[in-house]
């Protein structure tokens, strides 16, 4: 493994223009992804996880803008690249799959046509060669009967099948980095298991680095090597998957993990689920200090004054386990 990470996000700030002024959806996010590694960005709606992913891809809507930080891909800050060069990276070295395979595919073009486009745009295969390459890809993502599916339209495929087509398109040019934004959220659990299995297999084969955005901590446990937990546009905890999920340090991570029943837990043996009181404050609300203070069971005066910086915590510090909390569970390293 080379020393330099494949992807290095540093102090990323992304804002949205709204009628009530600019809103910081991503507020100083840093994370690294190595080759062949899966990093999960976990959090709830509005925490900034998808906006982080879109900022890395350069696919933000017009109302949003990256205002600060760096996104280094193989050491090059892609934010400073001319648009044409950045476009050249997308779909080739960097690829993305989305939550809704139903809306991400063009309904009036055949599957084969859409997948072949990826080669045409990047000039990576001629027309005749493209058909063979598309069929090989469809086979690789385990689409049964690929010759027939080549001429099918998206509505003729199931949700799981459409997500496989999206994965085929994303992997067409063997990208070094794949960004997957809640790719299994719209799918049934048996289909989710198929897609996760497929992503793991392809990663092993191609050595792709994966950024996997999800709200589901059980999916994180299944697929991640490392986890970044976000809340209110900031990273509140990060580290190796076992450290974060087995020894959570930030009260938010602790709260989220306790809010889900574990296998075998039932209310009949008196187990009560943990509740995180209240709800996520609107990003329009200015909060001095830690953004989690309004819901935190451990809140103290200092939390209302000083924004906590990510700092190594006792368990797993050597492997980069850190939390942005003045009073983390288990203490600071």
């Amino acid at each position, binding site marked *: 493994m080379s020393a330099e990470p494949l992807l290095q996000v540093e102090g990323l700030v992304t804002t949205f223009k709204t009628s009530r002024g600019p809103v910081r959806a991503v507020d100083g996010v840093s994370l690294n992804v190595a080759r062949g590694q899966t990093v999960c960005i976990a959090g*709830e*709606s509005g925490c900034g996880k998808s906006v982080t992913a879109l900022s890395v891809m350069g696919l933000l809507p017009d109302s949003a803008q990256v205002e600060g930080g760096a996104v280094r891909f193989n050491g090059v800050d892609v934010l400073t690249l001319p648009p044409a060069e950045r476009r050249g990276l997308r779909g080739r070295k960097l690829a993305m799959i989305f939550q809704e395979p139903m809306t991400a595919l063009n309904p009036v073009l055949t599957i084969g046509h859409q997948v072949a486009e990826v080669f045409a745009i990047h000039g990576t295969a001629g027309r005749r060669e493209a058909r063979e390459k598309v069929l090989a890809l469809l086979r690789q993502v385990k689409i*049964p009967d690929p010759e027939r599916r080549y001429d099918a339209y998206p509505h003729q495929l*199931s949700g*799981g*099948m459409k997500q496989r087509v999206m994965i085929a398109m994303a992997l067409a040019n063997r990208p070094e980095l794949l960004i997957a934004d809640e790719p299994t959220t719209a799918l*049934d*659990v*048996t*289909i*989710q*298991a*198929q897609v*996760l*299995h497929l992503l793991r297999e392809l990663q092993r084969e191609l050595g792709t680095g994966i950024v996997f955005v999800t*709200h*589901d*901590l*059980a*999916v*994180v*446990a*299944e697929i*991640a090597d490392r986890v970044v937990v976000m809340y209110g546009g900031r990273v509140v905890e990060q580290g190796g*998957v*076992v450290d974060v*999920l*087995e020894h959570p340090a930030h009260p938010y991570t602790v*709260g*989220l*993990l306790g*809010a*889900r*029943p*574990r*296998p*075998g*837990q*039932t*209310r*009949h043996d008196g*187990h*009560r*689920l*943990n*509740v*995180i*009181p209240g*709800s*996520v404050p609107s990003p329009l609300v200015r909060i001095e200090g830690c953004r989690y203070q309004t*819901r935190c069971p451990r809140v103290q005066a200092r939390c209302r004054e000083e924004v906590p910086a990510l700092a190594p915590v006792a368990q797993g510090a050597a492997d980069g386990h850190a939390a942005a909390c003045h009073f983390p569970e288990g203490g600071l390293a």
Partner: protein
Amino acid sequence: MTVPVLLQAEGLSVEFPVRGGLLKREIARLRAVDNVSVTLRSGEVLGIVGESGCGKTTLGRAMVGLYPPTAGRLLVEGRDVATLDEAQRRLLTRDVQMVFQDPFASLNPRKRIRQILEVPFEVHGLASGAEREARIRELVELVGLAPEHLDRWPHELSGGQRQRIGVARALALQPRVMVLDEPLSALDMSIQSQVLNLLVDLQQRFGLSYVFISHDLSIVEYLCDTVAVMYLGRVVETAPAAALFAAPRHPYTQALLAAVPDPVPRRERVTRPLEGDVPSPLQAPAGCSFHPRCPLAQARCRESVPELRVIDTAGLQRAACHLL
């Protein structure tokens, strides 16, 4: 000890016409629920689980009388709903209320919360004036909101707050049974446990019985007493929750439980994921509808539909599989 049965589906089927062509004539019938028998006992939580299109929502809606059964019977407190006249049926519907999945779609956006909560009283001609207002205030407090929320519009509430209003509306008529159709799945993780704990508290406080429809198996294991697993319109296995999660017997239940992501991190999975997709109910396979995906399928699975029958000595676990 016999616990009274509150709600019972007996060989219940629900079919929908599929229309097509220029004249929108009926070209096929889609059987969304196919010969389902389930029983809800007093004080119990019955979980109905399965993947999209398995018929769980249709079954739930049929259980509150929103869809008339095309075959079989629905018994509420032992009385066949089909034999009742309009007035009697209306009385029964008070006892069986529903909470819908999407709290954004199930509340009228043009009515304030107070007006939304008044509807059940209006429909059934119950409590008026100051008494009604007092009942409505009591309802919002029961679900953990404050009387000032009554003057708000649905869009001013968060998803979790809206779902609490959905629960309050269902509670208004003091039902004995609530059919909860995926009541948590539109909510964020940190809000789900708030609403789930509320449901647990209300059940204990009022001795309610729930039909809990969900695709979230971890929550079903946590909450339910009995579970029915559906596949393509049929119940393939039903058992007390503890038995079902400890030792699922139907190959589909086994595959479904194995597909649930394990919250304990580790790298390798032991089981291979189930292959293929759920077939369209319009082209349901002959025989056992699970046979095209079943790793154990044999010749007879392709030929005859397996009956749901008892498979344990206590007579509590039932499965529809030829191989058991």
